């Protein structure tokens, strides 16, 4: 089905800047000329490989590297002991915890880094791993997060002074407990569910890796590493390795997907740096797929207990108690003051009387992480919870799930809306967006079709979700990571010929920044986007900023790009006033040109102004020559995109296989800079949502062995599992963003899993009495639910 254009696009009348511009970066990618990490070969470069723990929890008795060192081609073998002498044995995580770079005392999860081999090629490096003898004394493992705080649970983090249990961070609360109790006391309907958002993995197609090139003569460290926040990483390496920050340069080049997985600093990176310092030559380390799945940043793993209540047909309250499984080291990604991320946005899109949220994080013998897999800091978990609970409430009340939502939505006139857990939603017209989705779906017809199919014994489900996200972290007074405010810089230079270069800190991993940011400058300066080059991914040549994740590129760096362009435009006005011998206030702007009010023939275009600015002609009093500017953008608030999603599933009654037949996604992300790229982001996130809902899970056996350590077991949707997505849009501009734009990249991943799971339950509720199922809805789990059996554990 075709893309549905519900509104005249906000961009159609603006050909110079915004619109469906085809991407600049495609030119190299379609020719196989991208420069991904493994494509870089430096002179004298050697290769690293990591020996990993086979046990989830074990004491290391001894490590003997002598046989590996004798292996031809091996240059060095590094263990925790060697790192201790360099002061690199432990590294800080982004959550103020510490993580072993190489395990010395104990291994705490299967796949943990134990030794690092450097050799002349990667085959030899991996051969040598087999020759390292490690003696382990296995310990009982904590696998089930619910049992992590049992008094007899083995202590995982005995390395931490004063740690006597497996609590990873103190109990964290949001909302008003008393008011919530009152809302429940006054309710006429209450539902209660245990809901698991299972551990899954972003699994970008390019795995993580690094080339570290330390020059012992100059002390300069050049790092090649595809990561989502190069400037912040530079600061972390300066801190970890004790190197001067101005002597560290990080280049990202092209990145084969990130989705949150390339936000953290991993032990392998520190090993590559240590290896280059020790060996004095560039060291390349690239993990294989198994290493990526078993050791790098997983996502979710929230075990949630929730109650939701309603009165007079309207949702009134929500109570949530969460156990967060953070794995063996607490390296979850979130702003400092938000230990459970933005999970307390779980009051969703509804005008609740009260909500109360409690989150407790525990250590387990599993890989560390808790990164946001295409998600703004736990909002995916929050949206899944609230939308599953609304689905449960609708079933309990025998209400149509859309009607219940419509009755409970925050109304357009209530914005800006203060939620009961402390968020200030900026704008919205939720009912309008929901109606567009119903229209595209043909909701009434679908319900009729479902009734007919039910008569024939066919299982069809229609699932709904409506999400509100808070993206674009964030205001410096509230949000920092490791003490670094979540603000982004932008530098804009207009060259004498009128061509421009903008340098940004946001780091694309496929989002099309080279096109979108050129369009922003083009829109603001009235020059063609082809005349704007976007520079990114090189800490020596870009301003400071916190990178790309949490859908923050457009909200924060996009704001910076707009503001810096306007600064240049303002300077151009002053210069034009000298050129045209008039006062600045007598000039008016039209796209690309300042002209004299009342005499439009008298004007100067940006190109002419630029040429003048660099010429020997006199500048306005007190103004420096040249045409450039820089800013640090501090967003006043998050942006709050939202959307209405409807999934239609068919379930095979014989095999319990779920097929997503249709998926309707209507997103409101404010003004769309490049609607083609926005649609593309939504398609991609929906595919990931289908994966999470039906296929993707990282699970463990009782000993802590990871059961999904390759793409044979960690199943990612192919073209056969994805339907032809049907998109629609509404446009409610963000009132505080310079362009009226909101973030969007994560919305489809956030919004789609609850729609699909609600559809599965919708298909099975009337015929099989199914009221709840946990993801992923694999045939085995769905079959068990259909038989009324407990689901297989995960």
């Amino acid at each position, binding site marked *: 089905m075709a893309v549905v254009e519900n509104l005249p696009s906000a961009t159609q009348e603006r050909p110079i800047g915004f619109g469906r511009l085809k991407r600049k970066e495609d030119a190299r990618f379609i*020719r*196989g000329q991208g420069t991904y990490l493994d494509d870089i070969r430096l002179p004298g470069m050697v290769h690293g490989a990591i020996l990993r723990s086979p046990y989830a929890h074990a004491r290391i008795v001894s490590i003997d590297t002598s046989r590996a060192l004798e292996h031809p081609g091996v240059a060095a073998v590094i263990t925790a002991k060697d790192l201790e002498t360099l002061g690199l044995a432990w590294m800080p995580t982004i959550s103020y915890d510490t993580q072993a770079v190489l395990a010395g005392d104990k291994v705490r999860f299967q796949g943990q880094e134990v030794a690092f081999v450097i050799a002349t090629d990667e085959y030899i490096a991996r051969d040598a791993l087999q020759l390292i003898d490690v003696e382990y004394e296995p310990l009982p493992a904590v696998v089930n997060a619910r049992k992590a705080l049992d008094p007899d649970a083995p202590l995982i983090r005995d390395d931490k002074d004063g740690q006597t249990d497996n609590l990873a961070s103190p109990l964290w609360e949001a909302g008003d407990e008393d008011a919530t109790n009152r809302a429940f006391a006054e309710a006429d309907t209450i539902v209660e569910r245990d809901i698991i958002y299972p551990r899954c993995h972003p699994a970008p197609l390019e795995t993580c890796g690094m080339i570290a090139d330390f020059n012992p003569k100059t002390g300069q460290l050049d790092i090649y590493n595809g990561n989502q926040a190069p400037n912040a990483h530079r600061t972390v390496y300066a801190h970890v390795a004790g190197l001067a920050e101005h002597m560290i340069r990080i280049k990202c*080049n092209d990145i084969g997907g990130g989705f949150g997985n390339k936000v953290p600093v991993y032990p392998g990176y520190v090993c590559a740096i240590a290896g280059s310092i020790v060996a004095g030559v560039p060291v390349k380390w690239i993990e294989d797929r198994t290493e990526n799945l078993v050791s790098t940043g997983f996502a979710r793993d929230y075990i949630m207990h929730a109650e939701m209540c309603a009165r007079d047909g309207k949702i009134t309250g929500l109570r949530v108690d969460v156990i967060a499984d953070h794995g063996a080291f607490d390296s979850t990604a979130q702003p400092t003051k938000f230990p459970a991320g933005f999970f307390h946005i779980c009051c969703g899109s509804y005008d609740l009387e009260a909500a109360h949220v409690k989150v407790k994080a525990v250590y387990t013998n599993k890989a560390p992480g808790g990164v946001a897999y295409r998600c703004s800091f736990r909002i995916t978990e929050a949206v899944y919870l609230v939308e599953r609970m609304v689905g449960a409430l609708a079933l309990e009340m025998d209400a149509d799930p859309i009607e219940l939502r419509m009755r409970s939505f925050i109304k357009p006139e209530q914005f800006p809306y203060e939620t009961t857990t402390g968020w200030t939603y900026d704008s919205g017209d939720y009912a309008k967006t929901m109606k567009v989705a119903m229209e595209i779906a043909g909701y009434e017809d679908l319900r009729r079709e479902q009734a007919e199919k039910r008569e024939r014994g066919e299982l069809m489900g229609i699932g709904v979700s409506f999400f509100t996200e808070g993206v674009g972290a964030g205001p410096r007074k509230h949000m920092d990571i490791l003490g670094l405010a979540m603000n982004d810089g932008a530098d804009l230079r207009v060259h004498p010929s009128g061509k421009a270069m903008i340098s940004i800190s946001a780091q694309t991993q496929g989002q099309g920044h080279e096109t979108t940011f050129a369009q922003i400058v083009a829109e603001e300066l009235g020059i063609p986007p082809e005349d704007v080059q976007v520079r990114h991914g090189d800490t020596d040549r870009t301003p400071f900023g916190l990178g790309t994740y949490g859908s923050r590129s457009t909200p924060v760096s996009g704001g910076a790009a707009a503001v810096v362009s306007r600064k240049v435009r303002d300077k151009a006005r002053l210069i034009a006033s000298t050129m045209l011998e008039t006062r600045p206030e007598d000039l008016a702007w039209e796209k690309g040109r300042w002209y004299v009010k009342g005499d439009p023939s008298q004007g100067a275009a940006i190109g002419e102004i630029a040429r003048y600015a660099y010429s020997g002609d006199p500048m306005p009093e007190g103004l420096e020559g040249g045409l450039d500017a820089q800013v640090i953008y501090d967003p006043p608030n998050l942006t709050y995109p939202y959307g209405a999603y409807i999934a239609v599933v068919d379930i095979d009654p014989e095999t319990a296989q779920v097929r997503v037949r249709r998926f309707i996604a209507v997103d409101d992300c404010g003004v769309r800079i490049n609607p083609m790229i926005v649609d593309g982001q939504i398609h991609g996130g929906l595919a990931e949502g289908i994966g999470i809902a039906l296929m993707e899970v990282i699970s463990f056996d009782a000993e802590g062995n990871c059961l999904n350590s390759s793409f044979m077991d960690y199943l*990612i949707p*192919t073209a056969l599992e994805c339907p032809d997505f049907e998109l629609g849009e509404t446009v409610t501009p963000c009132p505080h963003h310079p362009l009226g734009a909101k973030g969007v990249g994560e919305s489809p991943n956030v919004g789609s899993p609850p729609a699909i799971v609600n559809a599965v339950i919708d298909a099975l509720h009337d015929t099989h009495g199914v009221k709840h199922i946990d993801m992923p809805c694999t045939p085995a789990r769905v079959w068990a639910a259909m038989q009324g059996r407990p689901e297989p554990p995960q």
Partner: protein
Amino acid sequence: MQLEININGEPVSRDVEPRQLLVHYIRDTPGLTGTHWGCDTSNCGACVVLMDGKPVKSCTILAAMAEGHEIRTVESLERDGQLDPVQQGFHEMHALHCGFCTPGMLMTSRALLDENPNPTEEEIRMAISGGICRCTGYKNIVAAVQWAAQHQSAPSPAPPTPQEV
């Protein structure tokens, strides 16, 4: 062992270990890093090349097994400054984001269209289902292959100019 493999019409000889994978042999050839590696287990398809015109996963073939065969990689698609219609289609329809799966998807699509110039949507989805794209949700890849099918014989419009990273 000494090997000679024909890659993109050129003989490439090298002394390699018998265990070397074809993907590494190709990538070690100067200028041919367009063929990517993504998974080890033959699931992701980032390493797809054509062997005698058929798509194969070069991470699951030893270089030695390719001796005497003709290998085509993504670098061979553009000829005399003319993009292959599948390349143009991917650009026109926004069928790539990060670009990492793109070479494999392009070669798979090329092989499909060589065999079946007018595939249905279902046939396209089946053909590319040996590959994983984490970014696009496949919708635009399907559209790109359809675009290429419709523009097979027509000369491609001028290709976009490559830009520096």
